């Protein structure tokens, strides 16, 4: 089977102005969500206590809330986790220390319904939360820095800027979507975000690689034509790889359990956004910065190989 019997000829770069406007709007919207709604930060970053309790039958959340209110746990956030038999209780860092608190919560719940079973307790001290947030931010910065250097070294600085702006775009838009829908942002989502960086970059590099090759090989053609041709040539691969990755992510999202769901969703969003950005952000940025044939004169040896291979 082959969806692409012959090479497609879509003038992607003809739409690059439209795409740029769309991208700008997207990023602006994401930033607006981040600023005005803010991220729904998970326990890992805020600190506090989280207690997961399982019941043999579905329970009424309102009842659980009442029980907790009566037990003096004001400000407890109660929600179901996956199924109605599983509930999640979250308490702020000022509610008390994790050890005593989780036992007290469980005791209060068991007094009301002896079948309540403790499934999971997480307590993160406030200083740990701050540290994790700081480390997470640093990790993002270092990853971007490392990538910038590698791409600049392997290709050219304009490509490096293009790649990094694509990656930044992906990160901002993905976090923006998380803020927009109010999904919880925790450590695993941060890990997913870093995986998105890797993935999106992968996509971008593959296209850049072909642009570089075509600049050398195609005697005629403007930079825009070369870029378009390269994106079209790589289109089957871009779509097939995105598809296989998405297939796996959908499996994770549906079957992987509640703990993995945020992680899978972040990656699904990231793969979609990353596929878009490697076409419309990375290449456009490199073009806008004025990448030309002369910038990509390869080391002589590689060039000889390519000439030989043309029949």
């Amino acid at each position, binding site marked *: 089977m082959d969806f692409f019997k012959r090479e497609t000829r879509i003038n992607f770069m003809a739409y690059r102005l439209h795409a740029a406007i769309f991208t700008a709007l997207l990023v602006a919207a994401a930033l607006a969500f981040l600023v005005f709604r803010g991220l729904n930060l998970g326990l890992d970053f805020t600190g506090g206590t989280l207690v997961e309790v399982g019941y043999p039958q579905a329970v009424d959340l309102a009842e659980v809330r009442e029980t907790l209110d009566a037990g003096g746990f004001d400000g407890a956030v109660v929600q179901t986790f996956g199924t109605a038999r599983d509930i999640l209780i979250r308490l702020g860092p000022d509610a008390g220390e994790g050890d005593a608190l989780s036992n007290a919560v469980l005791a209060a719940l068991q007094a009301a319904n002896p079948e309540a079973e403790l499934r999971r307790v997480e307590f993160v001290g406030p200083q740990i939360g701050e540290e994790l947030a700081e480390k997470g931010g640093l990790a993002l910065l270092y990853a971007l820095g490392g990538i910038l250097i590698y791409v600049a070294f392997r290709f050219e600085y304009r490509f490096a800027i293009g790649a990094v702006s694509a990656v930044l775009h992906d990160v901002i838009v993905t976090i923006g979507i998380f803020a927009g829908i109010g999904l919880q942002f925790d450590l695993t989502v941060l890990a997913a975000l870093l995986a998105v960086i890797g993935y999106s970059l992968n996509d971008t590099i593959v296209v850049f690689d072909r642009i570089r090759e075509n600049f050398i090989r195609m005697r005629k053609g403007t930079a825009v034509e070369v870029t378009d041709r390269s994106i079209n040539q790589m289109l089957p691969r871009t779509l097939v790889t995105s598809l296989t990755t998405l297939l796996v992510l959908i499996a994770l999202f549906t079957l992987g*359990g509640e703990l993995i769901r945020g992680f899978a969703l972040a990656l699904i969003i990231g793969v979609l956004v990353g596929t878009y950005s490697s076409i419309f952000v990375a290449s456009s940025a490199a073009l806008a910065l004025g990448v030309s044939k002369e910038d990509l004169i390869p080391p002589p040896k590689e060039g000889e190989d390519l000439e030989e291979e043309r029949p």
Partner: protein
Amino acid sequence: MNRYPLWKYLLLVLVIAAGSLYALPNLFGQDPALQISTADGLAPDTTAQERIAELLAAREIAVRGTEATDNHLLVRLRSNEAQVRAADELDVALGRDYTVALNLAPATPAWLRELGAEPMYLGLDLRGGVHFLMQVDMDAVVEQAVERYRDEFRRALREADLRYRDIRPQETGLDIAFIDEVTRDAALELLSADYLELAFEASESDQAATLSAEITEDELREIRNFAIEQNITTLRNRVNELGVAEPVIQRQGADRIVVQLPGVQDTARAKDIIGATATLEFRMVDEGNFPYFGDESEPVPPGTERFPERGGGFVLLEREVIITGEAITDAQSGIDTETGQSQVNIRLSGSGGGVMARVTGDRVGDHMAVVFKETELQARRVGDEVIREQVEVEEVINVARIQEQLGSRFRITGLDSSLEARNLALLLRAGSLAAPMQIVEERTIGPSLGQENIDQGMAAVLLGFALVVVFMAVYYKVFGLIANLALFANLILIVAVLSILQATLTLPGIAGIVLTVGMAVDANVLIFERIREELRAGSSTQQAIEGGYGKALSTIADANITTLIAALVLFAFGTGPVKGFAVTLSIGILSSMFTAILGTRAIVNFIYGGRRGVRLAI
């Protein structure tokens, strides 16, 4: 022509065969087992082993096998019920000289274990358990040290009859104000000879001659290290009380300790024990009745108390407690340079040393005893049920003759072996935590949730794998099938490497594997699309294969190296779960390069390599 040399085929076969071998133990599952060790953390001796076997046989509990290692005896059982029943029976019968811990032992066949093949280690989120991160209060540690020096200085100056105005504690040192310079200089001479770990500096201000003593950086580091090491020792002793198999107690960074207790279900009890303190008391022996030959039934003379001695027998001690373990600031085992015998060097806080000097001054020649008190969990049989309860245990761990008046630094000599000295030093230190600790992070995973996580993770891996495999086979026909083989080999290699490294498999780790499956196909997609391009451009089959693999290589390398950079950053900055994800992702990237490029090429060459003009099923 696309031919691979024989050695490449051999390399592939070898790597995949070795991978399969080391991945194999993961298929065998685990036996419910008991891990039995003595109170000193050694394996029970052969007589005890026989007794255990007899006990289990008498209760008709079938045993699958027993193995003894250096520090425990592992008894494999046939079912979870048998495991719990056997644990109860043994707990009651063996008493407090042994700890019996529930464990899941890998059921890896012996021949595999001899090759060093072990299954992956499951993280807490998959097997259930408790994770604590404790923060040691380092400011308090330094404060205590400064406090100690202040007490010691006061006494030293008083004894030398050097008058001072006052001693003010600073952040990492002390300022002593003297009446005049002469006294100050005398004090400087006296103190700097005794305290090499301090940096002294003399200075003059308006009316006073001041001597400042700073704890040096090296010594500060030493003090902090000692505090954290001692806290770890104390925690380890307490965790041993819990009877947890494979506990992890590790230092993390400068001032944190990680405690992981797999399989612990009763977190409240875990916290009780970790928070419990063993205490030490120094008391004088009742000399009128020493050695003591009475037993438990006899009345004791007034003013004395009877304590059991470790190793059997009893000792009569005076009721008055000289000092408690809190006064001990350090205890190290060593060798007496004169006699060559083992000894323990003890250092007390200033006030503790003062009391010790006062009490022992006029009792040289008498005996002094160290009493160790702790709460232990003991099993008891009531009717048909086995009850576990916390019991206060007291025993005398050492009796020694006082040879001279003791101060804040003294030693216990005449110990039989260096092992005994080490144990005594450990016990002396175990009394209390060197520094206050606080739980800053806690994660508890119930065992049912752990199993659920494994099941869900496996289901996701299988479904994701199946979807990709079907898609590849449909989209790339024979080449798709070849890619699927590579994918399968990749999965085996990832599991094998994780098993060999004994890396901890966590839920995010499984996600990393799943993601690699999705991304590993990318290399093949790149190659196959390139081959299709070459074919469209009119290349012959052999040229298309050659060109496809050759030209895709640099693209694949670039793409994977960038992903690897991201994974390495994740590893460097991540903690726990994020690290697990980074490890599996990195391993996956590397192994996928091997299988997707070398592996598929070998098969493609094998099928199509020698034939001219054949149509590629791609």
